[in-house]
């Protein structure tokens, strides 16, 4: 086995920050090489150096690709040598067809320099077959799901004669079936001699697919381990990533459950644009003071829709049902009423629904609780800064100061800003939707700690998650949601992943198990 890529003592400095501080990376021809590290460890920066996003000369160190020095001045240079990067945020144009997307910037020209559509579509069909996607090349990309779009990105890479494929968090937005399919495809491509580098936070996925794993921490290579050795466990990777033993992935918490804080009864929500389609169907649940309640459901089960419709009817139409706060029926017809009742909802998609990315941390933290800073309609800027500083230090948001733009923070730190914003509204009930999506192990632990602190203060937390181990690790009770219906309620002591999954897959017309059967 020969080496296809060698990166030696890569140093990349931004003013004031050393993002990479001597990273070494060896990738063997034909292997799948995983790169692990906490957010901000420098993984993405390293891949940008490799793919020419940061051109040669803006970093120190040397890169040898396929036996000769690689001095890429741009992405075009690296793609010409067969190094293709697929970014976490997919770069497809939704209104263009599959074939148009595949050959975007790399158009198949015919006579007189005009695009040869017949050749393009025929080649696209072949590429789609290679990635195992049965779609018409003329279909607009926007009509396909995220999983299929990810495969189209890979088809696009294949059209460029890829030899080294770099995937940045390829399965972050995919469900289990789509992820499995993608991983199968990577193995298949490996059979065809394509080398892959995969960046992922999903350790079980890495264990499943990677031949070797390089761990990066604080801009340095910690070690490269061979995944076939029995000592290469997930715990070992975590230890390398965080630089300490995470004895427990979930912080300990003593449950002291008090009175009921929020009760939802017979909650039904219809789809905003498709009349007659019930998204949530007669859901009832409650949460008590000092309690963490989980809502488990697969994609499309109506988890986010349930939470957002409760939170000031910010989703859906023809919403019916009753809300009780501290035993009294309440109305929350819009978001400010919900906030007024001390209900908070931290969204699953922080970039689209949670943060003003072009503004600073200070303004984001105060945005939902601005009224407290402005008793007479005028904002006290100094007090605002003090509040933001307070949350920065108490939630350990890693940034030199709160005037930094939120768009530049890592995912974990962005999530802490979202939580700060909601904690500042002084909620009695905090609903967190996929609170640890796309963030690393260390930051996850910190998020769980924040949740624990809240319930320790006698507040109630509802956690919506698709990661069952997470729910089992931090909740007191778990409700399962399937096709808009609450299909079960299980105390965490009696819950297992298998049992929950069974409840999460009960279809619309199947009868629900009675309490006795479920437990």
């Amino acid at each position, binding site marked *: 086995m020969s080496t296809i890529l060698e990166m030696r003592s890569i140093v990349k400095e931004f*003013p004031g920050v050393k993002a990479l501080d001597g990273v070494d990376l060896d990738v063997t021809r034909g292997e799948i090489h995983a790169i692990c590290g906490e957010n901000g460890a420098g993984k993405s920066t390293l891949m940008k150096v490799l793919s020419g996003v940061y051109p040669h000369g803006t970093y120190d160190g040397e890169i040898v690709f396929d036996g000769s020095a690689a001095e890429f001045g741009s992405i075009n240079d690296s793609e010409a040598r067969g190094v293709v990067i697929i970014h976490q945020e997919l770069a497809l144009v939704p209104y263009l067809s599959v074939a148009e997307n595949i050959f975007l910037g790399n158009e198949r020209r015919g006579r007189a320099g005009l695009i040869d559509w017949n050749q393009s579509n025929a080649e696209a069909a072949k590429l789609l077959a290679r990635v195992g996607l049965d779609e018409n090349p003329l279909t607009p990309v926007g009509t396909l799901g995220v999983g299929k779009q990810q495969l189209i990105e890979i088809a696009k890479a294949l059209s460029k004669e890829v030899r080294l494929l770099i995937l940045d968090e390829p399965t972050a937005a995919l469900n289990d079936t789509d992820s499995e399919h993608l991983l199968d495809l990577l193995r298949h491509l490996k059979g065809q001699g394509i080398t892959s580098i995969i960046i992922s936070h999903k350790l079980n996925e890495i264990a499943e697919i990677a031949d070797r794993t390089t761990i990066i921490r604080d801009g340095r290579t910690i070690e490269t381990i061979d995944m076939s050795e029995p000592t290469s466990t997930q715990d070992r990777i975590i230890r390398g990533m965080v630089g300490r033993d995470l004895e427990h992935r979930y912080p300990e918490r003593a449950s002291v459950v008090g009175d009921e804080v929020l009760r939802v009864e017979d909650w039904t929500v219809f789809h905003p644009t498709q009349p007659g389609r019930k998204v949530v169907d007669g859901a009832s649940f409650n949460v008590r003071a000092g309690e963490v309640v989980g809502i488990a459901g697969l994609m499309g089960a109506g988890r986010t829709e349930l939470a957002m419709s409760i939170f000031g009817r910010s989703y859906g139409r023809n919403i019916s049902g009753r809300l009780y706060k501290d035993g009294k029926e309440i109305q929350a017809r*819009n978001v400010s009423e919900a906030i007024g009742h001390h209900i908070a909802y931290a969204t699953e998609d922080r970039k689209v*629904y*949670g943060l003003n990315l072009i503004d600073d941390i200070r303004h984001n933290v105060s945005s939902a609780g601005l009224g407290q800073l402005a008793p007479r309609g005028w904002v006290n800027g100094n007090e605002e800064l003090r509040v933001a500083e307070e949350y920065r230090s108490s939630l350990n948001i890693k940034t030199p100061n709160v005037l930094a733009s939120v768009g530049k923070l890592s995912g974990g730190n962005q999530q802490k800003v979202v939580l700060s914003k909601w904690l500042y509204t002084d909620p009695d009930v905090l609903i967190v939707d996929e609170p640890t999506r796309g963030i690393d192990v260390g930051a996850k632990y910190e998020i769980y700690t924040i949740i624990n602190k809240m319930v320790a203060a006698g507040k109630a937390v509802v956690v919506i998650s698709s990661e069952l181990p997470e729910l089992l690790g931090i909740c007191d009770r778990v409700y399962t949601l399937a096709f808009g219906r609450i299909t079960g309620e299980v105390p965490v002591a009696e819950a297992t992943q298998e049992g929950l999954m069974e409840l999460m897959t009960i279809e619309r017309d199947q009868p629900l198990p009675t309490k006795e059967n479920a437990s």
Partner: protein
Amino acid sequence: MNAIASIRDVITRNMRQSGILVAFVVIVAIFALLNPMFLSPTNLTNIVLQYTYILILAIGMVMVIVAGQIDLSVGSVVALTGAVSAVVVIKMGMPWWMGVLAALVVGLLVGAWQGFWVAYVGIPGFIVTLAGMLLFRGLTYVVLDNVSLSPFGGTYYGIANGFVNGLLGGYGVDTFTLVIFAIAVVGFGVSQWRTRQGKIAYQQTVESLPLFVVKLVVLAAVVMWFAYQLASSRGLPVVLIILAALTIVYALVTQKSVFGRHVYAIGGNQHAAELSGVKVKKINFWVFVNMGLLASVAGIVYSSRVNGAQPAAGNMFELDAIAACFIGGASTSGGVGRVGGALIGGLIMAVMSNGMQLMGVPTSVQPIVKGLVLLLAVAFDIYNRRRAAALR
């Protein structure tokens, strides 16, 4: 860091913060060098009298742009409100304040009309105000019956052409003007000092005391020099008082009020704002109502300045106002922009027009130069910001 390096650091940092201010100073300096008349008392007074309406429009426009919208109708609204005022005062012979009142009411109605379509029906502001541009131009013709009306005369004429002077006497230099400016400068200094003290009380970093004082002194010197020029010409223009009041009010509203902060939040990320309890529809509605109101103020000032109303008045004013905002650092995608920036942008446009007229530049060349300056000013700003980002 040694002393020289730290001074250089301060200069570059401030340069980055206020690149457009530097561009403004450079443009003024060029005109002053090319034509000594440019900085004369009479001409400075003229600039104030002639271009205030663009600055008033820019104040409203910057809020519209920050909210992520645009208003193409303001030129037509200036014409319509001026026309209504002219009909009330000239045709119907009512007192001047009835004309002002009628124009303001029409401005509010126009704003409410456009705000309704943008906020509650959900049509992009670009479309609504493009329709409004045609609609209100047509209504202007209807209101004026296709003929120009003039003159206003009297107090109404004084709004944009009058001066406050002689109240405290003086020897060819109006003392009252100087006193007003001195009060304003001292007031500004005190408020800056209190802001600084507040920051210190909250343990924030502030610029060093000498730098703070030097900045204030330089600013005070420039402002007082300007005041002296005005005072030695005809005194304090009434429109300058109107403009100063609007500037103070809207700088406070945008930077310090909850309403202003909600406007920035909507422009930055509407979904996130909505889920943070911001009433997006309501805010969008009031942003347009406010624009309508300010357009009517500009309409009053403009009709007073030209002492009458013409069906074709205010043509292309919207583009001057929009250009002022973008020169002043507003972002085309919303969420970024300041009243102060828009005012400097508007002043750049005003100074350009005035300077070129003074030098007798042919009217065919003037728009070419203005267009290029718009492009260069924004390019300079982008260059500065990119360099700032790279150095951070």
